[in-house]
């Protein structure tokens, strides 16, 4: 028997690992991947809550899944722009250490 709790706890653990990744890694690509992991954890919570509501009400309920669909679209847009920025920064600074990205002027 799986209760909604288990899914939410798994989601919390994955979210924490993502937050830890943003804090301890210095490579912006890995930081981006950690952000994707956090978005994924939130998506898992959305779908689990939606399923839980569906079972409680006994009728089909799609709002949670549709929200996840939008989150996936936003994540795709974010990655496209973010990776273009990283490539551009690499072209000017020849290195992508996050500690050196402290000025807006190229």
């Amino acid at each position, binding site marked *: *028997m*799986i*209760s*909604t*709790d*288990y*899914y*939410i*706890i*798994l989601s*919390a*653990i*994955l979210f*924490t*690992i993502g*937050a*830890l*990744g943003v*804090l*301890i890694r*210095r*490579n912006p*690509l*890995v930081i981006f*991947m*950690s952000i994707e*992991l956090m978005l*994924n954890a939130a*998506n*898992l919570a959305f*779908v*689990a809550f*939606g*399923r*839980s509501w569906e*079972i*409680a009400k006994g009728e*089909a309920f*799609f709002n949670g*899944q*549709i929200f*996840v*669909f*939008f989150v*996936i*679209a936003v*994540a*795709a*847009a974010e990655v*496209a*722009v973010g*990776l*273009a920025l*990283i*490539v*551009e920064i690499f072209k000017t600074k020849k*290195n*992508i*250490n996050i*500690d050196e990205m402290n000025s807006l002027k190229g």
Partner: protein
Amino acid sequence: MTSELLVFLVLSLVAIASALGMLFSRNTIYSALFLVLNFITVAVFYLMLGAPFIAMSQITVYAGAIMVLFLFVIMLLGAEQMTAPDALSWQKPLAFLLAITLTVESVYLIFARAKLDTVITAPDAATNSMESLREMAMTLFDKFLLPFEVTSILLLVAMVGAIVLAKKEKGARA
């Protein structure tokens, strides 16, 4: 019922292990591949939660498109082994401490305050039918039509932004 719990436990172990593998790999390519494994595990969770369309878009969009983009950029920059010395020595222990606090706190709050003891049952066969997908599409294009259109504009803006960033400026220095 018990087999379902067993599947859940094994899959969550794989999900957490691959997330930690992503975090602690020295090589960025390995990080990306661990993340693909994590995304696929989450897609199987979506299937267990009766969301087959989301599971498939997870695999095609996340594990497919987004991670291919990541791998392209990693190989383009040659960033596989890029490791920098830590600037602050106390940052790592503090981050671990905060992460453990966050996990303990959220698990405690979920167990103590928000008891969600709804039993998640396996979805019946009707969830995986065309009829269910049609219903979901009706919700998406009826109730959520405006957010859907806004998303398409967002994707257009992201595409234009990426092209503008990648384009060489005319008469640019160097």
